[in-house]
């Protein structure tokens, strides 16, 4: 049982860390991209959206190359934090963060863009700074977008396969997440076990969809 649960716990751990880190990244980038005008803003938005269209194997390949111990980024991580990025949990966490970035940032930016400009301008004229306006006026009015961003990021990370396989491989207890476990058991012709993992992910996805619908109604009333 413990052996069966290990990939599921790892997927959960990866999803929780990815969502928490991206929540911070999403809110900060939402603040910067929405509240400030600067050159290159469109380029940054395009780069954030890139993982939506880039094949996961391509992204995984580039991250794998970039995180090799003899590469600049891989060397920095190893020297500064003492961690090897490739074929480790840290590696798949970084890959997962990059791959899920648009799932967190895009809903937040869309929510902010949809708010009337006069709301933030009214806040400025009432003596509030950009930062105060962002947290006191804008964030409370994009609750459903924030919620959608968190859920989508979490759910997307749970089902991640390509990037994780490219960067982390298939190491039990370290990088073998649930979606890779399905692949592994299929390869080993353990169809029963593969079926159980697939069923768990299917039920999880359904629960997430119902949860999103239910909570969005609650948030709309809140």
């Amino acid at each position, binding site marked *: 049982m413990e052996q069966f649960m290990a990939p599921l716990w790892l997927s959960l751990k990866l999803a929780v860390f990815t969502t928490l880190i991206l929540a911070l990244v999403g809110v900060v980038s939402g603040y910067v991209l929405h509240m400030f005008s600067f050159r290159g803003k469109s380029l940054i938005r395009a780069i954030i959206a890139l993982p939506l269209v880039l094949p996961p194997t391509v992204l995984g390949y580039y991250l794998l190359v970039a995180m090799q111990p003899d590469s600049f980024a891989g060397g920095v991580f190893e020297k500064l934090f003492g961690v090897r990025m490739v074929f480790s949990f840290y590696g798949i966490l970084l890959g997962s963060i990059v791959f899920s970035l648009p799932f967190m940032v895009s809903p937040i930016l869309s929510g902010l863009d949809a708010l009337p400009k006069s709301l933030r301008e*009214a806040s400025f004229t009432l*003596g509030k700074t950009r930062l105060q306006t962002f947290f006191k006026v804008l964030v409370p009015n994009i609750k459903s977008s924030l919620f959608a961003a968190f859920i989508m990021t979490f759910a997307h990370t749970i089902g991640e396969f390509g990037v994780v396989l490219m960067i982390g491989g298939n190491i039990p207890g370290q990088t073998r997440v649930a979606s890779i476990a399905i692949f592994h058991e299929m390869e080993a012709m353990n169809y029963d076990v593969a079926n159980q993992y697939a069923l768990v992910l299917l039920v999880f996805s359904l629960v997430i969809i119902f949860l999103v619908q239910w909570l969005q109604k609650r948030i709309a009333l809140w």
Partner: protein
Amino acid sequence: MVEAAYSLDCTKKYADRGRSFSLEAELTLSKGSFTALMGPSGAGKTTLLRLLAGLEKPDSGVISASEFVWSSPSAFVAPHLRHIGYVFQDYALFPHLNVKANIQYGFREEVDNTWLEQLLTVFKIQDLINDRPASLSGGQQQRVALARALAAKPALLLLDEPMAALDFSLRNEIRGELKQMLGLLNTTAVMATHDLLEATILADHVVWLEDGKVVREGAPREVLKAELLRLKEQTRDI
């Protein structure tokens, strides 16, 4: 001669309904005065208010408050530091806050409960304090927006066609309340409006704009009389 509280002499390119204009305006506001900005749509009334509020930066020229420069090629004071009040055309009430919290948001430092009660009484919104903006009528939203803009006792109040969406009797009522509060605070006010009657009742100075330029200014009756005469001439030509 009355000392100028605010002065604006600047240019700004702006667009309205797909057309580009260039605002070239010179304006002086004396302390406690009420100026109505009038003119056809796209004349630059809102752009002028936004320049005074610091929501737009001028392309050239200077905007100053007494001896302080608010906007110039080398300096810019952000809107939150200008100690102004602004009533937007769409009122811009915060949907997540109730009426009381919306008004409290306008206080710069600690909430002055006596002043808050006074605002609620004058604008007749005491019974609405727990309501969210979405459940209010246009007139009620207008009153809350005015109360919020006046919460911090601003030195300059800017009003962008604040009563455009209200019916005649409601406008009359709110005009009275607004005049009462402005008199109490000795606040300088600038209002963009299309309403001749409103300008005559509230303002002591009218500035008529066309295509971004001031074409006439003075006492309300004189400016409006000249404008009516011009319109009459135009109609005769047709």
